[in-house]
């Protein structure tokens, strides 16, 4: 680019039109408002939860209760009362899990208090800062304590009362706390509702399960346990629990991180943490000033357990079998002993990943409570002692249940049965979860569970238990199974069956998805191969889900231990019904089920003496698989997000409509100017930096004129033309074209053909293609374009088919002028059209412009060359520094009036001589030049007068005012020019 255009390009980068500032500010406010509206609609649903300040307060206290019934000794219970904003309110008693204390339920308590309940949490005797010894929810001790706490609630003015001494109160709690809820509801009439979570029905069956029975299991519920006598000790769990009572941190009391819920976005990082923190370690975290538990372990092996509990544990742990006395104690400590008296509404929440208290425990509770006249809702969720505590949605459901039954407010939850189905792991490692809801838990009040028969195949197989019971099969690690289940790599490691120890029976691949929900049963025939060991046959049955590629998954890591105490010694078979663990598992199409019966398991007390058994299926009795049809709960649908998307799109549409309406009101016509191609009035363009490119410019162009816009570089010519094209918005003033005000995109611009500051072609296309695409972009009819005429004016010859990239500057220039002429516009605006052309081409161009204007159209040409304007234009507007210097017809301005200029040897003498001539005025000396207004006097006579006065005249001619002025301008402003 030979000439510097730097001035314009420097200053208009961030130009803000000042006249439009008012409108602009309003527009900006509108934009900000709408953006805010979009953010509000979308963001509100995007942000799922915000932390609100706690709307409750707490009171710590110590409550004395009798150490034993009728005993004068006292046990101090450490309690915390959570008081909601509004009282009196119904109360919730919230006992904690085994190994925890009152602080391990503080989150749940806070949530319930926010829901408007008075919540009482406490450390059970033997835990936390409470004194006393652990009796495992003995009716005389822990349950009696809880009744005293209900007494305490009855004395509080903040608690809503049913009658004197009878507060409106519910009990909810997990595991150990859940069992207390059941025990209390069975012994204290004042309890109005309970929601036990992942708890047991029969401690003897939970710790010493036996999944084998001689007869079929009769219950019509989905997950009844066999509850056979003389079970196999769940050694790993029993040890863990006992350790928790010794004051050793354990994993049992709390259930660690929340279980996954439908719609959860689970990060992988929390899977790795496993259940850890909520148990016995919680007191340490709850306040540095606190002392360690007051009641120190009392005897070396019993910790804080009572002698009776300690003796019972010693009994079973030593040889893996329970004495009658122990079984009796465990029964007494179990909810099963009182469920026959529970008549209050009950919500049973049980975990599908729970190798400690499986679904069969909740099933037994449900049956017994229903029989007693209570109403039971059941929820199976993805957590459990292995899978985590209830997540926020489930906690909300529990609170809804309590709220309805304590206040009568809200929708009646009824007695539905909901179970979560944990699907396959998704690509990001998080399992997908959906909830299925059935009208009721089948088999409770009506109906029975639907069962599908699945044929298993496999011959009789001999399995061997090695001496010492090792290597043992591994089905998981109690409390850590969640971690294992979350990783497809790890789960392979944790379902190991040592060779020779297990019999395998497999089904055919499923044709379609089978949603297994509950405990399957199968009949097996077992005989001793060799001598029958002491204690009979101990076997472990598990049901694997086998994918088409052969990888096996043990749903819930659950196994069914079997003891057949009376296995015939003569090798004749015993037929048993095995109740497999209750699980929820979608068996996908193509997957098969595999029943494995092994002799060892690492988590159980496997007998150590060697033995061998023959195991076969009983013909004609296939695997009986429970299914519970229901509707998938659609709350998992991302309704919030969809609403957010709709809101966002609506807001965007609204902005578009508002903008379109604002554009509508901009066309105003001045009918008097309808025939005038261009009128500029008071046009000003200034930039924030302080530079004013065009300053109060006014002029007018009439049809048929060739107007020259003359000025040095930086005079504001190009800026003016850009404003004419609607590319730049003026700061002040306006341009009217044929009476219409020029605004960006004003339709009247279609009557202007323009070439301003360089050509603009697509370099990858030929000249002709460029012109054709340009015309197509106008959307106007092709025959109006006059392509051939325009192309011939460009005169590029064959080069018109070459890519524009290969063109010279002059060729581009000519093509650009041809483009401006497409459609034969009424106003042709050309910026420095001859720049870059050679002299013959310049000559032709002048001819083109003159002839074009002669057709009645108008041409506006800008130039920094006086000669150019003089030779091409009929009219001229001279600009300098954005201001109008002169305007008018070219020859008028070039030779203004009768003024003349003489170049002489003696200017003073000449001036004197001219002044002497009558009528001559305005004599002026400038170097060797003398200017004068001859006023009608012929120049020849003036020369004669000068000669007469003895002045020698070298040159005489019309005075060229324009040139004077212009040269002066160019001299000071044209440094950058070529």
């Amino acid at each position: 680019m030979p000439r510097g255009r730097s001035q314009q390009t420097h200053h208009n980068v961030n130009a803000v039109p000042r006249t439009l500032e008012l409108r602009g500010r309003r527009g900006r406010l509108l934009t900000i408002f709408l953006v805010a509206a979009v953010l509000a609609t979308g963001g509100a649903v995007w942000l799922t939860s915000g932390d609100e300040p706690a709307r409750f307060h707490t009171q710590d206290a110590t409550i004395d209760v009798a150490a034993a019934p009728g005993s004068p000794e006292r046990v101090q219970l450490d309690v915390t009362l959570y008081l909601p904003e509004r009282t009196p309110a119904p109360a919730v008693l919230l006992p904690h899990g085994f190994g925890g204390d009152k602080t391990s339920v503080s989150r749940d308590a806070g949530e319930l208090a926010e829901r408007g309940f008075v919540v009482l949490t406490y450390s059970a005797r033997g835990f936390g800062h409470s004194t006393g010894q652990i009796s495992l929810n003995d009716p005389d001790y822990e349950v009696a304590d809880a009744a005293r706490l209900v007494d305490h609630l009855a004395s509080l003015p903040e608690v809503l009362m049913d009658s004197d001494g009878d507060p409106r109160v519910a009990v909810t709690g997990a595991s150990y706390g859940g069992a207390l809820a059941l025990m209390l509801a069975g012994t204290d009439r004042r309890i109005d509702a309970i929601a036990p979570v992942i708890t047991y029905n029969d401690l003897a069956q939970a710790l010493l399960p036996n999944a084998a029975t001689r007869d079929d299991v009769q219950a019509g519920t989905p997950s009844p346990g066999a509850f056979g006598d003389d079970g196999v000790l769940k050694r790993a769990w029993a040890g863990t629990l006992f350790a928790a009572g010794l004051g050793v941190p354990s994993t049992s009391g709390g259930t660690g991180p929340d279980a996954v819920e439908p719609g959860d976005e689970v990060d992988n990082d929390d899977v790795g943490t496993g259940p850890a923190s909520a148990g016995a370690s919680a007191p340490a975290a709850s306040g540095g000033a606190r002392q360690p538990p007051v009641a120190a372990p009392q005897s070396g092996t019993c910790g804080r357990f009572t002698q009776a509990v300690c003796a019972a544990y010693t009994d079973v742990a030593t040889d893996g079998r329970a004495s009658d006395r122990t079984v009796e104690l465990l029964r007494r400590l179990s909810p099963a002993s009182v469920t026959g008296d529970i008549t209050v509404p009950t919500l049973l929440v049980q975990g599908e990943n729970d190798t400690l208290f499986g679904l069969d425990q909740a099933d037994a509770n449900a049956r017994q409570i229903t029989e007693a006249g209570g109403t039971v809702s059941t929820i199976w969720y993805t957590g459990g002692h292995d899978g985590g505590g209830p997540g926020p949605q489930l906690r909300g459901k529990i609170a809804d249940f309590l709220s309805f039954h304590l206040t009568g407010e809200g929708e009646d939850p009824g007695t539905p049965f909901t179970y979560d189905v944990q699907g396959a792991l998704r690509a990001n490692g998080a399992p997908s979860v959906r909830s299925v809801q059935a009208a009721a838990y089948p088999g409770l009040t009506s109906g029975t569970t639907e069962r599908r028969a699945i044929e298993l195949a496999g011959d009789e197989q001999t399995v061997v238990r090695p001496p010492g019971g090792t290597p043992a099969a591994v089905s998981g690690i109690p409390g850590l199974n969640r971690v294992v289940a979350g990783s497809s790599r790890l789960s392979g490691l944790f379902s190991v069956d040592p060779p020779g120890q297990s019999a395998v029976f497999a089904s055919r691949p499923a044709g379609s998805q089978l949603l297994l929900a509950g405990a399957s049963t199968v009949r097996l025939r077992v005989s001793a191969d060799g001598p029958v060991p002491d204690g009979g046959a101990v076997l472990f049955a598990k049901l694997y889900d086998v994918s088409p590629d052969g990888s096996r998954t043990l749903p819930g890591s659950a196994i069914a231990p079997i003891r057949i105490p009376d296995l015939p010694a003569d090798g004749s078979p015993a037929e048993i019904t095995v109740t497999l663990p209750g699980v929820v598992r979608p068996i996908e199409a193509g997957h098969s089920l595999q029943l494995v019966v092994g002799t060892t398991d690492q988590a159980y007390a496997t007998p150590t003496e060697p033995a061998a058994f023959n195991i076969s299926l009983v013909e004609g009795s296939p695997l009986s698989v429970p299914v519970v049809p229901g509707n998938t709960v659609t709350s998992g649908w991302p309704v919030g997000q969809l609403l957010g998307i709709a809101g966002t799109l609506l807001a965007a549409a609204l902005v578009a409509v508002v903008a379109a309406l604002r554009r509508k009101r901009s066309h105003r016509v001045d009918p008097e100017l309808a025939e005038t191609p261009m009128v500029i009035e008071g046009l000003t363009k200034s930039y924030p930096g302080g530079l004013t490119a065009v300053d109060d410019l006014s002029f007018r162009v009439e049809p048929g004129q060739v107007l020259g816009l003359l000025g040095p570089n930086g005079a504001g010519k190009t800026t003016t033309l850009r404003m004419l094209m609607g590319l730049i918005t003026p700061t002040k003033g306006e341009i009217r074209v044929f009476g219409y005000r020029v605004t960006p995109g004003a339709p009247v611009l279609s009557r202007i053909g323009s070439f301003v500051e360089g050509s603009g072609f697509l370099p990858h296309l030929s000249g002709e293609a460029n012109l054709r695409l340009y015309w197509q972009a106008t959307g106007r009819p092709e025959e109006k374009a006059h392509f051939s005429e325009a192309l011939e004016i460009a005169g590029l010859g064959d080069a018109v088919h070459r890519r524009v990239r290969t063109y010279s500057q002059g060729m581009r220039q000519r093509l650009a002028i041809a483009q401006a002429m497409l459609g034969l516009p009424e106003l042709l605006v050309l910026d420095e059209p001859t720049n870059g052309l050679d002299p013959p081409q310049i000559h032709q161009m002048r001819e083109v412009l003159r002839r074009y204007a002669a057709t009645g159209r108008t041409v506006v040409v800008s130039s920094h060359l006086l000669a150019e304007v003089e030779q091409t234009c009929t009219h001229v507007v001279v600009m300098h520094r954005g201001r109008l210097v002169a305007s008018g017809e070219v020859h008028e301005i070039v030779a203004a009036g009768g003024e003349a200029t003489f170049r002489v040897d003696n200017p003073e003498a000449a001036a004197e001589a001219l002044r002497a001539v009558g009528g001559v005025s305005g004599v002026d000396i400038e170097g060797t030049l003398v200017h004068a207004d001859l006023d009608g006097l012929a120049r020849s006579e003036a020369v004669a007068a000068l000669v007469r006065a003895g002045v020698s005249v070298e040159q005489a001619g019309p005075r060229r005012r324009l040139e004077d002025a212009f040269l002066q301008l160019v001299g000071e402003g044209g440094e950058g020019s070529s």
Partner: protein
Amino acid sequence: MSKASKPAEENARLDHGVHTDPAALDELTDAASSETTEVGADGAVAGYRASRTLRLGVELRRQLRRRRTQLVLGFVALLPFILVVAFEIGDANPNNRSGGFIDLATASAPNFVVLAMFVSGSFLLPMIVALYFGDTIASESSWSSLKYLLAIPVPRHRLLRQKAITSALLSALTLAVLPVVSLLVGVLWYGAGDAISPTGDSISFGQSVVAILLGTVYIMIQLAWVAGLGLLLSVSTEAPLGAVGGAVLVSILSQILDQITALGDLRDFLPTHFSFAWMDLIATDIDWTEMASGALSAALYATIFGLLAARRFATKDITS
């Protein structure tokens, strides 16, 4: 100002034989004098209607004839072949039925498509969208052709809209080419078998084709935020590379921040956080939550960026 690049003698050589025939001038003036210009009510010349300017077909032709467009389309179509060659050279086991997406790539055609989309998801696909949208106005600025389009006049909002729609069509076309070619290549090399998920689930070929279709649609929606940002940068700069690079850079930054797990839930606000949510479709029961969140996030970002771009372009002084 590219036109200044040729030396004078080069110009002279090129100019040889370029001239206007005097007869041509006569033709022009004849045409001009015989033709009277009719004017519509809004001051426009007869035949001009704003709603007919820069129709999609015209803009598509302008863009499709660009080498850039052709190269991108060609590359995306070639990518599946490159991947196949890579697997052939390497020692992939076609019977591999477990492992990650990469290990499973050769199990079947749908798995191959998933791999192709997975490996291009973090950089290539955002870059394609950034290229079409970031370049669209900025390249016209750099060619100086923008002012002539606006002087037609194509109303500014319409110009932006037509350009955005064209870029969206080209992006959609390019994004669709990848799975389509991958599927064809996959069927030829690995057969139309079931899709195998990393967890061992198998999804029938028909279902997986639907999943791939939905996944492609999701990717298109999710990348709307890149489109909005590209458009905003495109109207803000005259350097096409700056606009494209800027959008890609923001995408990379967002992905880097997404790796920082310490940011926790704040990462949900990163525009790329949900960019791989389409993988949820490769499952037997589909969870739509993340995809819905991704679509919402993209819609919000695209709307905000798009409105800002429209506002900036409507009031901007065009100086290039």
